[in-house]
């Protein structure tokens, strides 16, 4: 049988993969995809806890699933705005490489 810890471990590993992607990659679009990985890792642990802590009626705790729904909605809006910013950035600077975008570098 799978335990709660198995799901949390998988979620933690996925979060660490996304985090390393944000830190190690230099392409803005890849960094954005790694951010999505981190959001989804958090969703997985939320759903696992929703199934683990049953409500009084013996069904999963649906409050967590509503929160996951909100996270997915906000993430979709965030992707739309973020990609529009990346397109505007590419038009202005002709690059998606973060080391080429150094106007604020001291």
């Amino acid at each position: 049988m799978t335990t709660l810890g198995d799901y949390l471990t998988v979620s933690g590993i996925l979060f660490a993969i996304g985090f390393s992607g944000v830190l190690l990659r230099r392409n803005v679009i890849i960094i954005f995809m790694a951010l999505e990985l981190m959001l989804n890792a958090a969703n997985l642990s939320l759903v696992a806890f929703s199934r683990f802590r049953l409500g009084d009626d013996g069904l999963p705790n649906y409050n967590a699933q509503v929160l996951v729904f909100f996270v997915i909605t906000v993430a979709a809006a965030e992707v739309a705005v973020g990609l529009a910013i990346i397109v505007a950035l590419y038009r202005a600077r002709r690059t998606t490489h973060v080391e080429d975008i150094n106007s604020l570098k001291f």
Partner: protein
Amino acid sequence: MPAFLFWLFAGVMLIFGALVVVNRNPIASALSLVVCFLGLAALFMSLDAFFIGIIQVLVYAGAVMVLFLFIIMLLDLRAEERRTMNWVAFTGGFVVAFSLLVQILAVISRTQMAKQTFPPLASRQVDDVRNVGLLLFGHYNLPFQVIAVLILVATVGVIVLSKRQLR
């Protein structure tokens, strides 16, 4: 769900999640992310969250990833050429990410709750769309309306950002 299916989908998800970070070609990264999200949707369904699993496939694997692929093709990104890597930054980032992973795993291994299996459901019939909908339109009605406004603002923002010249 049998245990081997859990490990199968978890393995597929983690391998393709790692490929997102490792791949040099952005299109290969995006396609790996689609497979990763499909594995994640299967894990959601193994937790009896069928509505969330369907939403995951429709919104993430469908809409969001199509948006990513469109932008990659619009910008005409090739596989990035090898640059001189900043080894100090690379090693530092790797150490930080790895220590985060060790920290998370240490906390999970020390939690008593994590060793328990999932309790059985009261009934085999899980009408989760109905239950999520009742909560969403009842108790969480105000956040739901706020989300609607947020999406409207995001739509307007995207149009403003995409205009050729910003005034």
